């Protein structure tokens, strides 16, 4: 009985999200377009997340490099650290980590902001003044994230690989040239296509879910808290699920160019 009610709720939420996605999609390429709001959101969502992404990327790259260098040393393949690290970071860790970090920071912020506006009737006020709330609030956030998330992912990849370099050279005692040669060897078209397709999809996921959750907020302050938590959880799970789908469906197709 409980399972049935959870399934019903899930089906209802999915249907509402799909309806909202269509409404959002119809407004993405039509006027009016709030350009200045988009620029503001690019700063808030993108530049505001930079420190978090750099910090996460550096520590993740270094941690991964430490673990791999110990394992590879057992096989006498320490020099391949750059290759293994690049594949892991560019294909998986960089996009997923950036997506999850931005989801935690941005989805929470966007849902809480729009949810608070909903509960204080500011969304109704926008409509009453002839302004489409989705166009004004969701569309600029969508484009801002679509532009900024790939940029953040590239930065995360770069600092993670650089963090790995520090471990490779100063802890694992691999030569810098061996490390960078292996890194460049694995910066292939296939790896980069996979690594840079993901952030675009994650941007769509984060912006659509977080704005939808904000607009669906009900129940005052408590409702805002609930929507915010649900938004972060839904974004994170969807990102991990889509990441799995890409690994399962897309990666084999690009095997020839990896």
């Amino acid at each position, binding site marked *: 009985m409980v399972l049935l009610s959870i399934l019903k709720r899930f089906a209802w939420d999915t249907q509402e999200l799909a309806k909202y996605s269509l409404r959002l999609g119809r407004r993405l390429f039509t006027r009016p377009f709030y350009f200045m709001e988009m620029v503001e959101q690019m700063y808030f969502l993108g530049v505001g997340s930079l420190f978090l992404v750099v910090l996460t990327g550096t520590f993740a790259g270094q941690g991964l490099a430490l673990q791999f260098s110990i394992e590879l040393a057992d096989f006498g393949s320490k020099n391949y650290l750059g290759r293994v690290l690049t594949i892991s970071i560019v294909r998986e860790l960089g996009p997923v980590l950036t997506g999850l970090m931005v989801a935690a920071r941005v989805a929470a912020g966007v849902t809480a902001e729009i949810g608070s506006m909903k509960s*204080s009737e500011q969304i109704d*006020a926008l409509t009453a003044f*002839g302004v489409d709330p989705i166009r004004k609030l969701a569309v600029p956030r969508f484009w801002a994230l679509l532009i900024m998330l790939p940029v953040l992912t590239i930065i995360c990849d770069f600092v993670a690989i650089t963090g790995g370099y520090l471990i490779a050279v100063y802890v694992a005692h691999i030569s810098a040239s061996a490390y960078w040669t292996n890194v460049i060897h694995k910066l292939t078209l296939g790896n980069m296509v996979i690594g840079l397709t993901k952030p675009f999809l994650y941007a769509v996921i984060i912006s659509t879910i977080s704005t939808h959750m904000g607009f669906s907020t009900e129940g005052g302050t408590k409702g805002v808290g609930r929507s915010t938590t649900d938004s972060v959880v839904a974004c994170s799970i969807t990102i991990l699920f889509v990441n799995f789908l890409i690994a399962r469906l897309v990666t084999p197709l690009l095997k020839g160019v990896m």
Partner: protein
Amino acid sequence: MPLPAGPAMIRFETVSFRYGAGPVLSNVSFHVAPGETVVIFGISGSGKSTILKLVAGLIRPQAGRIFVNGQDMSQASESDWRQLRPKIGFVFQGGALFDSMTVGENVGFYLLEHTDKPLSEIEASVRQTLRFLNLSEDLIDLLPDSLSGGMQRRVAIGRAVAAVDPLIMLYDEPTTGLDPISTRAITEMILKLRDVKKVSSIVVTHEIADAFEVTDHFIVLHDGLIVFDGTGAEMLKSTNEHVREFLAPFIDSVRALTASFD
């Protein structure tokens, strides 16, 4: 009760609305004449705010017809509503000012969004609105959070008025929870808009004494049904149990107030 035959600025004909499973309004019919102010009373959850949202097109009725400024808006498209909304000023419960914008940006919101007027012209218009409503021009650069509740509601009225000259004003509990001075100031604003701009208004309120100052046309809602529609004197004499129940705590003060008007 049959609706009057004369011209109407707002007319509801057997309008029903439900949220999810529960009916909020059932077969509601009433009429607001041009330039007239109507006060809607009712306990919380009786459907008062829903009527205002229906008039502004923020929600759509499931049954019945709604005429606004002579147009049947029951099945109107969003673009029809976009054309009509500039003629409707909506003062939300609590003000609903945009908290990331200054008072000036709030009051000039409509002009900033929908016109190509230069900023200097919009600022002049904002200042004129603030003066018209006896609000200090020094407020213009402040954020809503730094204003008192009463001041926020007054700015919200300013925002609704500054759009264009509205034909209709909708007030959702404009004085609830405010001190007597703020309440007085808002009541005066409503009277000024009624008398100077000749707008038709619907005021949803629990403040009975203030209501008697702004109009003599009252509607009482109970559980989504109109249980009274008439003048103040008729309301005081009403034998309807819900009207009597609603008025009971205030009956002496209202009688004293109406006697003072006489």
